[in-house]
């Protein structure tokens, strides 16, 4: 690989590192966008079949060209900037929403050594970047100068910060037992232990000793991405579409892309932190990226399943769940894990 690229590197000279980084970034974003497109189709199909409908099946074979048709339609729709809106902030909102949901992918490892930036503070970087996502929503809601977006963004801000706390505590638990902020190290630390030696690697992964944290992390992930049943932010019966009411065309499409990219991000993070990333679940099968893809798809299916199954939570119930249930549970579990690690029963020595 290196030898093959040598003539190309010489052609670009000193700008080669930049060009090569850009190539790698495109190699991440392009498949991601295809995944986002087909996640929207998968969502409509899955929910359709769960409700005994067949979902979109008119555009292309089995409806497979539906996402492309949707994208084209949005591209050719007029971008409306309401007269009462703060123009600059109104344009900035979707950009602030999409940028962090893409940037977070810089540190996500896809396989051993297959990561764009193998930084040693990867988890901290992720916590910082995912916190930025709330700005897009707040800026959009404020700049629209319209009632529904304003109410929607207030709700979104309070909800997202509430669940970020319990997510943070769940990360602390993972951090305690892997003793590294580097995501590759976190995955590799899950590939050892008594069950791993017996060939049942999937019982050595973090999800089993940290089961309450795993559950909290998945539910918080759903709340953090404002997905059903926590989608009061854009609950159409209450605030129409929340912060996105005044957006149209491509600026709406960016919010849409950001939401689905965030769903995939949360799913892949759950796989990396709790489900052993690219590690094979049983001893006799080789590790590889396909395992990570499979686990991510399984978590994504839970997202869709939850949307098809549960009615929307009431807003005060959402806040109560975040502050009065998840925070005590996670706080206690941090202490439990710390004591467990010090006790003779520790499984992480």
């Amino acid at each position, binding site marked *: 690989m290196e030898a093959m690229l040598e003539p190309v590197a010489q052609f670009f000279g000193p700008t080669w590192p930049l060009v090569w980084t850009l190539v790698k970034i495109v190699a991440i974003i392009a498949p991601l966008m295809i995944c986002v497109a087909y996640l929207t189709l998968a969502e409509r199909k899955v929910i359709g079949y769960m409700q005994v409908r067949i979902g979109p099946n008119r555009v292309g074979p089995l409806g497979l060209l539906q996402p492309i048709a949707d994208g084209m339609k949005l591209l050719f729709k*007029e*971008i409306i900037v309401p007269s009462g809106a703060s123009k600059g902030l109104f344009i900035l909102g979707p*950009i602030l929403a999409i940028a962090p949901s*893409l940037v977070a992918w810089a540190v996500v490892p896809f396989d051993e050594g297959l990561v764009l930036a193998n930084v040693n503070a990867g988890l901290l*970087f992720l916590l910082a970047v995912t916190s930025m996502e709330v700005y897009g929503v707040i800026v959009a809601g404020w700049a629209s100068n319209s009632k529904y977006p*304003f109410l929607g963004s207030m709700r979104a801000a*309070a909800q997202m910060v509430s669940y970020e706390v319990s997510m943070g505590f769940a990360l*602390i638990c993972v951090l305690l037992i892997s003793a590294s902020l580097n995501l590759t190290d976190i995955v590799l630390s899950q590939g050892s232990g008594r069950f791993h030696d017996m060939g049942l690697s999937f019982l050595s992964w973090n999800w089993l000793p940290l089961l309450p944290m795993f559950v909290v992390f998945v539910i918080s992930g759903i709340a953090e991405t404002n997905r059903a049943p926590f989608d009061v932010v854009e609950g159409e019966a209450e605030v129409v579409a929340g912060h996105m009411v005044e957006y149209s*065309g491509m600026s709406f499409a960016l919010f849409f892309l950001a939401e689905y990219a965030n769903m995939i991000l949360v799913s892949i993070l759950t796989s990396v932190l709790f489900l052993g990333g690219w590690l094979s679940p049983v001893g006799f099968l080789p590790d590889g990226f396909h395992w990570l893809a499979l686990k991510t798809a399984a978590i994504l299916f839970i997202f869709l399943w939850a949307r098809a199954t549960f009615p929307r939570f009431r807003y005060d119930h959402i806040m109560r769940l975040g502050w009065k249930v998840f925070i005590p549970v996670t706080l206690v579990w*941090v202490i439990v894990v710390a004591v467990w690690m010090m006790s003779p029963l520790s499984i992480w020595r």
Partner: protein
Amino acid sequence: MLESYFPVLVFILVGLGFGIVPILLGRLVAPWRPDSEKLSPYECGFEAFEDARMKFDVRYYLIAILFILFDLEIAFLFPWATVFQDFIAAGEHAWFVFGAVMVFLAVLVIGYIVEWKNGALDWE
């Protein structure tokens, strides 16, 4: 060390570009025929009664303050969680390191209980 963050910097620029380009593209390709009705704020067909930036419940503000407290706490726990296993492996100071963090957590838990009792976490 720091050069491993170079791809992240490039990615931030690409991410911002990924936001700007579709909007510009949409502006170029899509029609652009604004009129005053189309640009009015959406309020289910009514004229806007008042400015949308109205008063909001103080609880949102309270939640934001509580979030800062808890998020700071998490930020302080990160370094402890990273090195805790090294202390256990070394043996002697593990209980001291554990106890120090428990005191820190206890202070926060007392504050948390006070908030709960005062109803700061209720949402009615």
